[in-house]
Each structure stands twice: as C-alpha cells, then as structure tokens.
C-alpha cells in the first residue's frame, strides 16, 4: 500500500517536473449563422474533417463540411446557446465515447452521458466514434456459431460470430423481437451485447430495457440510445458510438453482438443533416455518400484472427421496409453490404407465424460453416421442405385435387410450420432445437393434430429435460450429437410419443 502511494507520488512529481509553461497559439472561427443544429463558421482554415469543435468553451459540435476559410458543423446539443458571433476553437480531437466493462448494464447517449439515472460512468478509457475497420490480415473466417435461440434462424439461416446479418421487414413484423431474443439468448454465454436505439420513441427504449432486465440480460448489455426527440446529429452518431464500444471488447478478445435498430432512421437522420448542410441530394433525396455511411459502419464488424486476440463483432442491422418493398434505396444498399438477411413478412406475421421469417427470401451467406455439428446433422433440407410446402400450400388453397405425396408434403409442412413457431423472448437451447428437429425428422409429429403441435413440443422438451438432462447438457456444451447421445435422445422421444398415443387410447 505504502509502495503504491509512493509510486503514485513519484509519478505525479515526475510529470509536474516535466511540465513547462508555454503559451499556445491556435486558430479560431466565428459562428456566422446557426439553424437546426447546423452551424456555419467563418475561419478555422486548418480544421480537419470530423474534428470536435468547441463553441464558446461550453458546447461541442463536429466539423462536417470544410471549405476555404469556412466550416459547416453540426451541434451535439439540441437546446443550444450558440448564436452568431460565438467563438469556435478546434480541439484537435475527434468525437469520442467512454468504453469498457463499466458500461455493461447501462443506458447512455452517443457521447457517453448516462440516461439511466444511475450516476456517472466510471470509465477512464475513451475510443473515437469513427475508426478504421480491421484490415484483411487482421481477419479470419466466420466459423463459430452465434446462437439466437430461435429455431427457425439457427436451423435454416445460421449466424456466425463476426457476420453481418440484416433483419428486414415492414413495421410490426417482429424485427426488434428477433434481435432482443438473440440478446437474451447470450445471457449465460460469453457474448457481450450492444443495442443501439436510433431515433426511437423513448417509450419503446424503456420497453426494450424492461424486457432485457426482466430476462436477466441487461447486465451483459450496453444500450446506446438516441430518441426521436434528439437532434439529427445525435441520431447519426448513435451506431458509430455503439460500434466503438463494441470494438473495445472485440480488441480485448471478446465476442460481441451489436444490434442497430434501425438503419432506416439512421439514413433519414443523415439525409436531414445533409440537406441542411446543402449537400447535393440524389435518389430519394439521400446524399451521394449514403452507401458509404452504412458500409463503413458495417465493415467494422469482423472476426479477428487468433494473433489479434480472436474477438469478434457480429452485427444485426435492422431495416424497415415500406409495404414489403425491399428494392427501395436503403434496403438494397444494406442488403448488398451484409452477409445475408432475415426477411420478415407481414402476411406471415398476421397469419400467426412468428417469427414471420420468409425462408425463400432469407439467406445467410456464411451458411453451414457457422453451425454446430449437432445442428448440421439434424437440420438437413429443412429450408427446401418449408419452401416447397409454402409453394404447394398456395395451390392447395384453390381446392385442387392433390395426390398422396403432395398431401404428405402439406401434412408435414403444416407441422413443421407449427414447430418453428416461437413466442417472443422465448429462446431454445441447442439441445432443445436438436430434439425438436430430430423428432420432426423421425415423423413423430405426423400423428399429432396441427393445433396440438406446439403444446406437444413444449411438453416433449420438458420431459426430455427431466429424463435425459445429462444428454441435453452434453449436446449444449459440446455442440456435437454423438451416436450415444442420438440413441438416448431417440429412445426418450420414442417413449414420450408412445406414452402420448397410449394416453389417447
């Protein structure tokens, strides 16, 4: 203890001895006009793009447009006291946010101010909001699965650690619910989560927080939020801030899941800023660099190679479509940037199929490389069966005569559709998913009434947890389905369904 105090004392003395009084000379600018958080400044000819500017010593903004002897900047505060004539000085720094473990369980705004009323963030470390994505040599292939706990996704559209998987769909189709389930599923694992709420209603952010807290997942999560009430600049910075927080964990060798909810609102905030900055507008009035806006953000998601710590950032950006139009400007941009998409459909959602995943339009470009062997063994041609069923079901609705094989396809498809239904925030472990798919593959559900499938599935899983708990944990821990585990599982499933049919008779 004494040694510590002495070493701190000598450190401070050494720093003070080194200090020399030197006056400083730097450039300043003067606010020419200010409207809608956009400030036009005269002067600052050596200002750098993205540099943090200080207005009158008490407010901050970011330089976004540099011209000869003039700068346009956005303010980081809506209720600003900046008026024409205020002196602006450069800080020599770019915008930063506090990072580190002390943020876990906290809700902050994009520049690190706490929004949860739990006091100041005790973090001595800062990271620039904008930074370079990992280089090619720093990266390695995406091979480790990131389980979402959602059967339809983990079996047919597997997501790997380091992947960018877009969640796309109309409003009210369960996009956020999927992202939240994925976060909730990480609560017992080693994955840290960051949830970026961009321009959302404050009530929605409160609901999300409550859901995560109730599920016990908040302690493992950082929420970076800007509400619809916040200025466009804060909404614009939110995902970059969340990404900077995630990067700190990634470079420390940890796995991170980051959700951007949603990038449509982010693009709109950037459009508002760009129009106010009088930048030329292009398609749908978005500026020319709106693709770069999202590509530079999503490029920062990566799986680092072992030499660089082996951490990862898995990104789940969300895009809201209008009337199912995925060919609009922002959706097509983000689809082309990401490594696959989960497409949610209003029709499926309204038909009670939740999660409302359209298997035909959803894809994971990483594919089976990011799937546990146990899941690979049992998921087989699930996508194909489901897609065939949905196509055939459309014709069957017209009352057309159908042969025996088509009837079987429909019967099995109906049951598979039911099996894949999952209520919100209810997540399935790997062993449970394997058990369900194995039972389906073994045709055990063929004799169950469609309306009873979900109930039977849930009872089966409860029974298996009681009867062969060790086997279930062994599958969860190893990610493998050994011959012995498969036999035990099949025996238990067979016994369950035999018990069912005996009880019926």
């Amino acid at each position, binding site marked *: 203890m004494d040694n510590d105090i002495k070493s701190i004392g000598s450190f*401070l003395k050494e*720093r003070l001895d080194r*200090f020399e*009084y030197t006056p*400083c000379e*730097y450039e*300043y600018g003067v606010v020419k006009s200010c409207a809608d958080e956009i400030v036009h400044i005269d002067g600052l000819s050596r200002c750098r793009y993205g540099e943090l500017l200080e207005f009158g*010593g008490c407010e901050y903004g970011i330089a976004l447009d540099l011209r000869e002897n003039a700068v346009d900047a956005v303010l980081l505060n809506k209720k600003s006291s900046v008026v024409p004539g205020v002196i602006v000085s450069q800080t020599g720094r770019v915008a930063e946010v506090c990072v580190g473990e002390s943020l876990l369980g906290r809700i902050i705004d994009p520049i690190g101010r706490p929004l949860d009323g739990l006091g100041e963030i005790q973090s001595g470390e800062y990271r620039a909001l904008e930074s370079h994505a990992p280089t090619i040599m720093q990266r390695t292939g995406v091979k480790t699965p990131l389980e979402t706990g959602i059967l339809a996704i983990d079996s047919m559209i597997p997501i790997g650690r380091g992947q960018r998987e877009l969640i796309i769909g109309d409003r009210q189709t369960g996009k956020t619910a999927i992202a939240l389930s994925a976060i909730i599923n990480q609560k017992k694992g080693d994955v840290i989560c960051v949830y970026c709420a961009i321009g959302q209603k404050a009530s929605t952010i409160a609901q999300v927080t409550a859901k995560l807290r109730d599920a016990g997942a908040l302690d493992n999560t950082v929420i970076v939020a800007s509400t619809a009430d916040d200025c466009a600049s804060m909404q614009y910075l939110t995902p970059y801030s969340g990404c900077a927080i995630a990067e700190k964990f990634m470079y420390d060798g940890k796995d991170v899941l980051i959700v951007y909810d949603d990038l449509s609102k982010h693009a709109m905030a950037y459009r508002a800023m760009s129009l106010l900055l009088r930048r030329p507008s292009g398609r749908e009035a978005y500026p020319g660099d709106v693709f770069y806006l999202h590509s530079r953000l999503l490029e920062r998601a990566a799986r680092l190679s072992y030499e660089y710590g082996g951490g990862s950032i898995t990104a789940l950006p969300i895009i809201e479509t209008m009337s199912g139009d995925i060919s609009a400007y922002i959706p097509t941009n983000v689809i082309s940037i990401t490594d696959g998409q989960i497409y949610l459909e209003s029709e499926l959602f309204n038909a009670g199929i939740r999660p409302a995943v359209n298997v035909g339009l959803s894809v994971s470009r990483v594919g089976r490389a990011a799937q546990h062997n146990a899941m690979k063994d049992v998921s087989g041609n699930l996508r194909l069966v489901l897609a065939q069923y949905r196509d055939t079901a459309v014709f069957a609705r017209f009352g057309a005569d159908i042969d025996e094989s088509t009837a079987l396809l429909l019967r099995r498809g109906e049951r598979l559709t039911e099996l894949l239904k999952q209520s919100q925030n209810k997540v399935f472990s790997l062993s449970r998913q394997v058990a369900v798919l194995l039972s389906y593959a073994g045709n055990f559900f063929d004799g169950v009434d469609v309306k009873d499938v979900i109930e039977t599935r849930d009872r089966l899983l409860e029974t298996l947890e009681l009867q062969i708990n060790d086997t279930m944990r062994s599958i969860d821990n190893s990610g493998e389905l050994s011959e012995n585990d498969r036999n035990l599982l099949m025996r238990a499933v067979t016994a369950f369904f035999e018990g069912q049919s005996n009880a019926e008779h």
Partner: protein
Amino acid sequence: MTKAVLKIAGSFRSEDIVRITRGFERLLKKEIEFDVVEDGSLIGGFTAFIDGRVYDSSILLQLERIRQGFRE
C-alpha cells in the same frame, strides 16, 4: 489598425494592457486595437483573438495541459 479581442482573467492594470498590446504589435508587425473582456474562467493570464488566431496564455490552458500530462 486591426481590431482584436483580449480576454483577461481579472482586473489588469491599464499599463499591463498597453504592454500586452505593444508585444503583439511587435510580434505581428501591425497596429492592434484590443476590445478588452473580463473572463473569470481563465483563472489567470489572458487570451488574445487576433485575425482568426488565438494566443492563449491563460492558467486555464496550462492546468488543462497538466491534466492531459497526467492522463498520458
């Protein structure tokens, strides 16, 4: 004559202001007329704003630099 702003921490004597003005005139080789403003946040010293450049000789800046030095 170049118009400029001189922020001072407290009440400076008029001869101090004249000395500062002469010093800047020698440095920049031009005549300067300061609009003098009192700013307690500087703690001590002065800050001059001349032709788009700040000449900061305030205690506030020096303390900030000491703080940065401790952080590094």
